[in-house]
């Protein structure tokens, strides 16, 4: 019940006109970003980050996370009305959402999408409220070896569990870790990989890289497509909302299942995209008449949206409790924490109670306000799409440049952003995943420091990573996950070799 008291305190922190106004601004900007093609959650948060540099951390994180919630809500609008997923995790929503819109049930589909998003987030926020303090207080006992083991686990699980080719994930991750090491070495004070350049002395800023990788590259990618569209913007009446809500209890199994899938995949680096597809597929498999899916079934909207939002929200749990982001957007929020002078990790819960509980309370409030906002303003946001991309694209480029420049007041960073834009474009085209790169860039220095501190503590003895039960099991788990595809294949081939024998006997 301690969490409950602290949560109330968080609401008290939040209840100022300034914070509430920032929340509204964040939500509106977020929905805007979610609706526009070529912009999404991570891009939006990265581009709008500089707006928050002069705010206090609590206002800043409330505004940024509101942008994130808004983007999550906004993605559903274009999926249902135009069959254009604004986000990769909204792809599964188009399967049944767009057919519903074609049948003239767009309002129903939108209500279903927004409501289930809200439910998914709520379940994940409840999980964060009660689990994050426990995990962080447990993690307070961690020393450098334990932290390095946890970082190792994060990296290894990306390689072992990711769906991309393994060597591409490894490339992306090692490149991110290398770039994180550029500049002054924090332990010895030596310069590394700067090649005599005074600009590289500062190191490669994480946010500059993110703005280039996600913002600029996304514009380049979007321009490749034909950007014409045709569709209807439906407004939602109170009657439709009540009708959908009245039917909601009938689908409690689907909602619960998708929430749980989402929470799990959000905490582990599976991500919202995997969660939305898994939610959809499982709802279809357990349904009494699976062939009705894809033809405009409301359950086909509930399932992926709940899972995607639960996952998007749950990705913040490891970020808050351990300082390890569970998704690209969480990594950017983590980068924001560092800009505001906060040190992400378990100590956050002890040293910055106001901040943490203000953030958690804002998750509750932001979702409620966001739900009401989208339900009432859908037509306005849908008509945002009328603005031609040729007008939106240069504005995004300018916003990216402002963002990149503002971080360190350096023109060099604007050029760096452009470079990362090209890198991001090429990487996306040839299937090198960007999420491990982002994660490695933001965690690189901390992982290296943890490694070197444990080495200094242990006098260079590698067995320190197996020195007690806790660190040993995390390290072992990390290595198992790294080689998981190999182990999995070995198991399968073993099973295949044994089966004929069993048949004969």
């Amino acid at each position: 019940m301690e969490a409950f008291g602290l949560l109330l305190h968080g609401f008290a922190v939040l209840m100022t006109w300034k914070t509430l106004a920032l929340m509204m601004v964040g939500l509106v900007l977020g929905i805007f970003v979610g609706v526009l093609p070529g912009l999404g959650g991570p891009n939006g948060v990265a581009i709008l980050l500089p707006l928050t540099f002069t705010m206090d951390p609590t206002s800043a994180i409330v505004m940024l996370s509101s942008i994130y919630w808004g983007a999550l809500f906004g993605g559903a609008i274009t999926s249902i009305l135009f069959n254009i997923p604004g986000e990769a995790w909204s792809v599964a929503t188009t399967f049944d959402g767009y057919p519903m819109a074609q049948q003239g049930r767009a309002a129903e589909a939108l209500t279903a999408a927004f409501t289930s998003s809200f439910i998914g987030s709520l379940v994940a926020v409840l999980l964060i409220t009660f689990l994050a303090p426990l995990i962080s207080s447990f993690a307070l006992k961690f020393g450098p070896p334990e932290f390095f083991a946890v970082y190792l686990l994060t990296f290894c699980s990306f390689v072992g569990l990711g769906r991309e080719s393994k060597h591409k994930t490894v490339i992306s991750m090692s490149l991110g870790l290398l770039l994180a090491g550029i500049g002054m070495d924090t332990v010895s004070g030596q310069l590394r990989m700067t090649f005599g350049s005074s600009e590289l002395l500062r190191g490669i800023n994480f946010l500059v890289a993110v703005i280039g990788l996600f913002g600029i590259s996304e514009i380049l990618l979007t321009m490749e497509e034909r950007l014409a569209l045709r569709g209807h913007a439906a407004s939602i009446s109170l009657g439709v909302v009540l009708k959908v809500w009245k039917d909601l209890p009938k689908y409690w199994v689907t909602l619960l299942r998708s929430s749980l899938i989402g929470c799990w995949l959000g905490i582990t680096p599976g991500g919202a995209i995997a969660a939305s597809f898994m939610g959809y597929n499982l709802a279809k498999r357990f349904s009494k008449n699976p062939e009705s899916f894809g033809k405009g079934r409301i359950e086909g909207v509930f399932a992926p949206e709940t899972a995607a939002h639960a996952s998007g929200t749950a990705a913040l749990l490891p970020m808050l409790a351990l300082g390890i982001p569970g998704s690209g957007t969480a990594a950017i929020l983590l980068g924001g924490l560092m800009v505001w002078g906060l040190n992400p990790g378990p100590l956050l819960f002890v040293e910055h109670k106001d901040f943490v509980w203000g953030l958690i309370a804002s998750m509750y409030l932001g979702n409620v306000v966001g739900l009401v906002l989208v339900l009432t303003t859908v037509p306005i946001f849908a008509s945002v799409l009328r603005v031609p991309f040729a007008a939106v694209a240069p504005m995004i480029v300018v916003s990216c440049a402002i963002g990149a420049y503002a971080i360190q007041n350096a023109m060099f960073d604007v050029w760096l952003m452009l470079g990362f834009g090209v890198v991001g474009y090429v990487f996306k085209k040839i299937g090198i995943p960007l999420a491990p790169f982002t994660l490695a860039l933001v965690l690189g220095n901390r992982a290296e420091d943890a490694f070197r501190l444990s080495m200094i503590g242990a006098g260079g003895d590698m067995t320190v990573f197996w020195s007690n039960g806790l660190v040993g099991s995390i390290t072992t788990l990390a290595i198992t996950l790294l080689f998981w595809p190999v182990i999995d294949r070995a198991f399968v081939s073993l099973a295949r070799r044994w089966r004929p024998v069993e048949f004969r006997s």
Partner: protein
Amino acid sequence: MKQPVSSSEIEIVVDDPTAPEPGSPAVTDTRTAEALVSVLLLGLALLLGYDNWRTGIGWDSTGPQAGYFPFYLSVILGGASLYGLATGLLARREIPETFVTRAQLRRVMAVFVPTLLFCLATQFLGLYVASFLLIAGFMRWVGRIALWKSLLTALVFTAAMFVTFDIAFDVIMPKGPLEAAFGY
């Protein structure tokens, strides 16, 4: 209870006058692009690996030296790129997947080149003038939008950015001769 949904519908139609035409010939295929990227990454890995080796990759009294961690990362990066290069070259010749078509490349360049010029202009003219030129120019020539609309949009957006960042939030952007003439 049945709600008349269609009564409040607004039709939205957006056109794309300069869309890349389908069926344009491919400039290059994905495999060539992958091989090229692998070679570049391999080169980067060698360069960074050498630099870190110079910094010191051994152990001294306090633990690993500054170059230790990044050196082994360069080795991993080099290994993974080499693996990518080898598997790409040894793979069976399948139908090549298009990396980018000529029409697509033209459109991508239509964004990339103005962005590049925008960065250059920011360096010499300041961000706000550059941003005005980029938005107005892009809307006019890529989007084929009426000149007055392009100029107005660019002016309003740039002014809004100036008020938001330089005045309201105190985030100072690079300035050029125009701002200097106004005393900023």
